[in-house]
């Protein structure tokens, strides 16, 4: 791993993003708007909104960064820039960490805006601090980036890349405890749920919701999410081949 090359790659990805103002606007504004929609949907339902909004603050960055990354990486493959990059001193890890860093930063901005909107405009109420919510959101974004980088290896076209959303992301959302609390799930569903990284991110968020101080469970959950992201990045590196057929 070469730090200079990793940082140059992250800054290149951010520059690409900067030239695409519409994407930037969508990234920053859409989660806050969707939370507003939830606010009116659960008008007067008090704690229900608190619970759902809190979980959504973790799910949005995960889904959005998964999509953005898998398309971005696919474009690297189809336009030939990836082939070219792999003939330069850039290492696979430099490229993947560069992406992780760039989209992680973008997610920090997105998470800060969405969290600020949730607390100040939509009266979200949690026992724990908003800072922890942003931290979990960023970690979820990095998880999304890592899974996106990995999945893009299996897609030849944008159509295929988008199909990985229902395959990889939706089951995690269904089983993470948002729709049905995990303790009410059938045993085998709960077992699947505990094998999925998003479950731990949601558990961490719910801990922030009920505890004034950061709990051990929350830190353990964050370590699991970070570990899952690292595993996905390693797998993504393994699927990047300098030589192709």
């Amino acid at each position, binding site marked *: 791993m070469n730090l*200079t090359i990793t940082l140059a790659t992250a800054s290149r990805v951010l520059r690409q993003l900067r*030239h695409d103002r519409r994407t930037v606007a969508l990234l920053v504004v859409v989660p806050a708007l969707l939370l507003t929609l939830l606010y009116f949907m659960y008008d007067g339902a008090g704690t229900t909104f608190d619970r759902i909004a809190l979980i959504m603050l973790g799910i949005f960055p995960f889904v959005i960064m998964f999509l953005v990354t898998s398309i971005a990486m696919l474009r690297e493959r189809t336009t*030939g820039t990836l082939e070219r990059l792999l*003939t*330069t001193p850039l290492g696979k890890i430099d490229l993947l960490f560069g992406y992780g860093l760039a989209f992680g930063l973008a997610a920090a901005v997105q998470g800060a805006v969405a969290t600020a909107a949730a607390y100040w405009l939509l009266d979200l109420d949690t026992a724990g601090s908003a800072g922890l919510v942003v931290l979990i959101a960023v970690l979820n974004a990095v998880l999304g980036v890592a899974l996106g980088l990995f999945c893009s290896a299996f897609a030849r076209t944008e159509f295929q890349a988008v199909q990985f959303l229902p395959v990889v992301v939706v089951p995690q959302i269904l089983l993470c405890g948002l729709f049905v609390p995990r303790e009410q799930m059938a045993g085998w569903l709960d077992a699947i749920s505990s094998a999925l990284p998003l479950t731990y991110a949601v558990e961490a968020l719910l801990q922030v919701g009920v505890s004034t101080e950061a709990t051990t469970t929350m830190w353990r959950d964050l370590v699991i999410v970070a570990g899952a992201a690292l595993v996905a990045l390693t797998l993504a590196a393994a699927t990047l081949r300098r030589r192709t057929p």
Partner: protein
Amino acid sequence: MNNAIEVRDLVVDRGKRRVLHGVSCDIPAGRVTGLLGPSGSGKTTLIRAIVGVQIVRGGDVTVLGEPAGSAPLRRTVGYVTQAPSVYADLSVRENARYFAALLGLGAAEADRAIADVGLADAKNQLVGNLSGGQRSRASLACALIGDPKLLVLDEPTVGQDPVLRADLWARFHELAAGGTTLLVSSHVMDEAGRCDRLLLIREGRLIGDDTPPAIRAAAGTDDLEEAFLRLIREQVAA
């Protein structure tokens, strides 16, 4: 003569099709070698094997004394793919600076490469807004950064206007005079005469490997296109 590239019995399959059938050739250092052949003849596959991104079935490719694609070559080989492989959503300058950064070089080297391909006036434009010819020059600029010892260019002059094409060829010869080895592919026979040496490839087999005058003499014609045709007929007859 010193060889920059040595290819021995190179066999490449893509899918179920054999694309290169045991190609062997030497590419001399400090010269412009043209790789000429029709579309689908195996030019790009040979080039990909030389830069070390092609999975090969058999044979050896040695580049500057190292196996093709090995780590030390990643600083000394510049590669331009057929489709311009630069980021369309970055400016010419941002592209060049990124590729310079990968080699640990700065903005000055990036700007010099942009000026070298005649894009100084367009350096702040997004690559996506450039014409096809400008785009491929932007891609070329990124390969020139860091003064590579070997430049492998896959059809770099497609879509360029005639004046610019002449400029680019002059630039290639300047580089060769400075000791750089160039391997340039083209499917346009009128570019063949501009090379120091020619490799003629057809259906995955080399059918000519010599200087343009020698190829003309062997085929008994001054026209390289005609010479290529005669070489093909000889092959078919043999």
